[in-house]
């Protein structure tokens, strides 16, 4: 129990307007310290909703009907706005499927990271810049100094993805929720990002929730895999899981 960082128990999320149409139905899983948990599902299976809910960000059109999300023993869904703000980015952070959308086009990469650092550690001062460059180096960005001064549109997709990981890791979170980190990248870059995840887990001890639609990729990387179909966790003998595995072998 001591090794559990995140525990999701019976999470049910419904649309506000249609309380009997669950987006997520009775979802339970746990994430241990320094482990990678893969969550696999097709389009509309509720993956992204689940990812946002882990950070206490349930979209306004939805509502949590029942269940708990315990992060380091504290219930995320019961926290007030300020507690959540201090949790996000600092203890749990998230990287997005589309890094080009997740960066503000008029703010440089470096300024994004510095602002996020300042939000959790206002007194860092001049050290923050060096830490920011170290972070970019950690996620294997070549020439961090140049990249930090770039605007998001000046970077390639792979660089942007890594820059976003640097942003997500800037306050050394205990849990990283990575939403489709590789689906916008080509195969060689996918392999590099996956290697990067292994390295981050090894070097930072960060637990990772890896959300993807690609079962093969997740199975290679994750210690545990949760398959989500139409908002429910399904076992390996479920029709959808079988279809996924069949698709894998083709």
């Amino acid at each position, binding site marked *: 129990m001591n090794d559990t960082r995140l525990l999701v128990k019976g999470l049910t999320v419904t649309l506000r307007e249609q309380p009997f149409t669950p987006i997520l139905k009775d979802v339970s899983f746990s994430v241990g310290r320094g482990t990678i948990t893969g969550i696999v599902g097709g389009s509309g299976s509720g993956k992204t909703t689940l990812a*946002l809910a882990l*950070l206490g*960000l349930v979209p306004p059109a939805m509502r949590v009907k029942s269940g708990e999300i315990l992060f380091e023993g504290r219930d995320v869904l019961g926290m007030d706005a300020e507690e959540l*703000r*201090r*949790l*996000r*980015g*600092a203890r749990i*952070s*998230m990287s*997005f499927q*589309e890094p080009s*959308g*997740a*960066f*503000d*086009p*008029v*703010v440089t990469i470096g300024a994004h990271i510095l*602002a*996020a650092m300042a*939000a*959790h550690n206002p007194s860092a001062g001049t050290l923050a810049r060096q830490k920011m460059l170290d972070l970019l180096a950690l996620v294997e960005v070549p020439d961090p100094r140049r990249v930090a001064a770039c605007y998001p549109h000046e970077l390639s997709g792979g660089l942007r993805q890594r820059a976003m990981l640097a*942003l*997500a890791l*800037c*306050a050394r979170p205990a849990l990283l929720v990575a939403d489709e980190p590789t689906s916008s990248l080509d195969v060689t870059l996918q392999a590099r990002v996956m290697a990067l995840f292994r390295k981050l887990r090894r070097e930072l001890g960060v637990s990772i929730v890896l959300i993807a639609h690609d079962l093969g990729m997740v199975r290679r990387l994750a210690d545990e895999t949760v398959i989500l179909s139409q908002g429910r966790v399904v076992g390996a003998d479920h029709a959808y899981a079988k279809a996924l595995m069949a698709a894998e072998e083709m």
Partner: protein
Amino acid sequence: MSEMRLAWQRFVRDRVAFIALGVLGLLYALTLFADVIAPYTLRDESRLHTYCPPSALHVLAADGSFSGLYVRGVAMHYDEYRRRSYNETQDVYPVKFFARGEPYQLFGLVRMDRHLFSVDEPGRIYLLGADSRGRDIFSRILHGARVSLTIGILGVLISFGIGLLVGGIAGYFGGHVDNVLMRLCEMVMMVPGFYLLLALRAAVPDSLSSLQIYAAITIILSFIGWAGLARVIRGMCLSLKERDYVLAAWTMGLGDMEIIVRHILPHTISYSLAAVTLAVPGYILGESALSLIGLGIQDPYASWGNMLSEAMSIVRIQFAPWILWPAFFIGLAVMCFNLVGDAWRDAWDPLLKGRGDNA
């Protein structure tokens, strides 16, 4: 910011607007150096030159030879109906450049007494004629431009600040906050502007120094102006906050105000710039209107509005039409700001071109 550069390129292609921008630049440059350019200071007057018409500039001496620029003295006459008229005398007053005259402080710092051009006393040079107290209208237009042209910019900056903040907060938080703030805006916008202006002016004591009056008018004008801008900014924020980078900023634990200031308001700046330029004329006209009816800048200080208060009598306009010059400059400045603002908005969003003013 390359979008900004593209918009600028489109703006430059609009010749009329580009010229208007040049005219505005010139007006502000004249304002900055008003003390040097104006032959007379604010307090200068000559009761012997009441409503003296614009001075004729001569270059040929009486015998027809070239003599350099000079003006003649004038003598006042009354006809049998006690109507005033001026005749040129034979006295010659050469126009001197950078000669010593009344002392002033350039930019309020540097003591100087050189004027761009002047004539020796008792000669007077009136490029645009004189007013009821024999004051040079040209000089007073330059001095008055300080009030009239800066009050617009200053007022807009204040109301712009309030509008951005209120609109940003209303749009970002939505719900009850939005509801309360927008109803507040509507209350401000509901009252007809000019009456609100009068009511607010009445709330300020009259026994103020000219600087205090200037500040009071600026604040009153911006109090009226912020609501319209806040509404538009709020609308933009409603859509901007749905962007992924705002969600990303949330997941990084950034505070609400930081997200508004860093990730939302910067994206409204190009629109706001156009809105601000289009709002300046309203402030210039507002100040003119207040000063015209004697509630604004008080004599002996000049503003284009209070100079026009002399032109409220049709009889005076008939025999001294040059007292309407300030109106020309108000019109010029207002027109230029409108041209520049329109062109900038079109340059920013070519789809809006020709849609009129309600965009």
